[in-house]
């Protein structure tokens, strides 16, 4: 303690750390703890009853299932996207690269009504898909489309810098040793990219699970079919069922925390293998 204090030449540490801790506590920690304290006061029986009704369980299955599928689709196409942006040249590449961040910048409600307009029965794509028997808007498929939109930049932006820093010397060595391009990709390129890819997948999944704005317009919100868990919290609040809303929120928060730790671990792994390679 003494040695570190002696080495501390720069001023402002107590003020900066103190302000950071107070602000963090007031805005984030105390409000979040309200969910758990409120859940604890209502007793286990009613808590369990609130989080385990068939309608709530159906919403978990939908929310987590579709989020997982969307994150997996984003992992595949996000990797292709990042690869194309890093390795190839084509006209308009700079604009495409800049617009990858659109889902970060576009308000979710705007994305929601735009996607609904596209995929509704009379929409630009919906009118062609409907005769084929494919209903997108107001079904779980619509939720999938919205969650793919929301999650894409997470995968692209975590994988892209790793691909950029990847030295091509190893690939050249693999090629000169007789590996074909696919073997080189699979054995030489993919392993160092994998931690970043998994991080992007987990980030996209975590975001998709909590997503509300872009989903509710296109989902149709039919109980047991296309009703996501965040919407269920709002429904309970509107019925003044505060304990019910809080209990479901506690379940969502616990999964958020687990995902956050998982993502932190993945990021540490990504930094290690990235830095080492």
């Amino acid at each position, binding site marked *: 303690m003494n040695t570190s204090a002696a080495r501390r*030449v*720069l*001023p*402002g*540490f107590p*003020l*900066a750390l103190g302000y*950071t*801790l107070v602000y*963090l506590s007031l*805005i*984030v920690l105390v*409000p*979040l703890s309200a*969910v758990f304290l409120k859940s604890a006061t209502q007793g286990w029986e009613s808590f369990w009853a609130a989080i385990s009704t068939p309608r709530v369980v159906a919403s978990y299955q939908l929310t987590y299932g579709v989020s997982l599928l969307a994150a997996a689709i984003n992992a595949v*196409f996000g990797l*292709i*996207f990042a690869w*194309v*942006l890093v390795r*190839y*040249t*084509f006209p308009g590449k*700079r604009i*495409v690269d*800049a*617009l*990858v*961040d*659109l889902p*970060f910048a*576009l*308000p*979710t*409600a*705007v994305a929601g*009504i*735009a996607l609904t*307009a*596209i995929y509704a029965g009379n929409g*630009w794509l919906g009118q062609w898909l409907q005769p084929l028997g494919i209903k997108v808007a107001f079904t779980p498929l619509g939720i999938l489309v919205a969650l793919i939109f929301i999650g894409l930049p997470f995968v692209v932006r975590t994988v892209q810098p790793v691909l950029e820093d990847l030295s091509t010397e190893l*690939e050249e060595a693999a090629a000169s040793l007789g590996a074909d*391009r696919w073997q*080189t990709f699979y054995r030489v390129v993919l392993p160092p990219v994998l931690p970043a890819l998994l991080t992007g997948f987990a980030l996209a999944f*975590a975001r998709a699970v*909590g*997503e*509300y*704005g872009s989903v509710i317009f296109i989902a149709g919100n039919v109980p047991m079919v296309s009703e996501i868990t*965040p919407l269920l919290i709002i429904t309970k*609040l509107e019925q003044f069922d*505060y304990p019910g*809303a*809080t209990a479901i*929120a506690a379940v*969502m*928060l616990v999964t*958020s925390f687990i995902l*956050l730790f998982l*993502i932190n671990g993945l990021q540490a792994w990504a930094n290690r293998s990235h830095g080492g390679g």
Partner: protein
Amino acid sequence: MGAAVATHWTVHSRRFEASAATREPAWVRGILIAIALAFFALFLLLPLVTVFAEALRKGWGVYFAALVDPDARSAIFLTLLVAAIAVPLNLVFGVSAAWAIAKFNFRGKQLLTTLIDLPFSVSPVVAGLIFVLLFGAQGWFGPWLIEHDVKIIFAVPGLVLATVFVTFPFVARELIPLMEAQGQEEEEAAIVLGASGWQTFWRVTLPNIKWGLLYGVILCNARAMGEFGAVSVVSGHIRGRTNTMPLYVEILYNEYNFAAAFAVASLLALLALLTLVVKSLVEWRGRQELSAGQES
């Protein structure tokens, strides 16, 4: 500037086209580019174009009428007001957190960094709910607030709190890695030479972090103005009083007033495009200064 941008990209891509051994056959490249562009057009470009096409479907007259409507104007004003309070709060926090975490060593630093990121992994709906639990009529401070006639939930303070929560990490998480990478030698030199703490910050640290700072502020602002789920929970949807632009879009849309909904949405889409343009410029300037710094 256009030429400079082009140069950047040619330099960039030459690295990978130097050797035929590290290139895919032309048909593979073609297919991969086609897949990426199709995905891009379907999931990114089409929604963006749709917003403007739907907004102008009934002509410019209807478009402008929707924007000058008193409810629309009060929603625009409220959105600007909330962002004008939330962004500076998180800016000051971000700088202070980055100063403590990047320039000093202390126990629990890793935990603190994780906790700062926490709001990103919380659902916006839960973010709104926590403030209802604290300040709502049935919340912890509810009775006290009613007694003293202070309104937080279903009023502007609630909107600000929810927005501050969801945009909490933006500035801090841009600055922490940047300031960690820059180390503390320059600041220590300034202090040893007799500069005060504030002088050191304004003259040494701030010029070094200005692009990262701007980048964080832009992203923070975009999210603050566009937030929907969290403010939806705390707003109470009182027309002309507690409706921000995204909430107003929802109301118009649910009333089947699609042209007006998309007209207001198009303003938010323009804001998003502006954010992306400024972000690209900032990234480009930041990279230029970085490479200029490395060369000198």
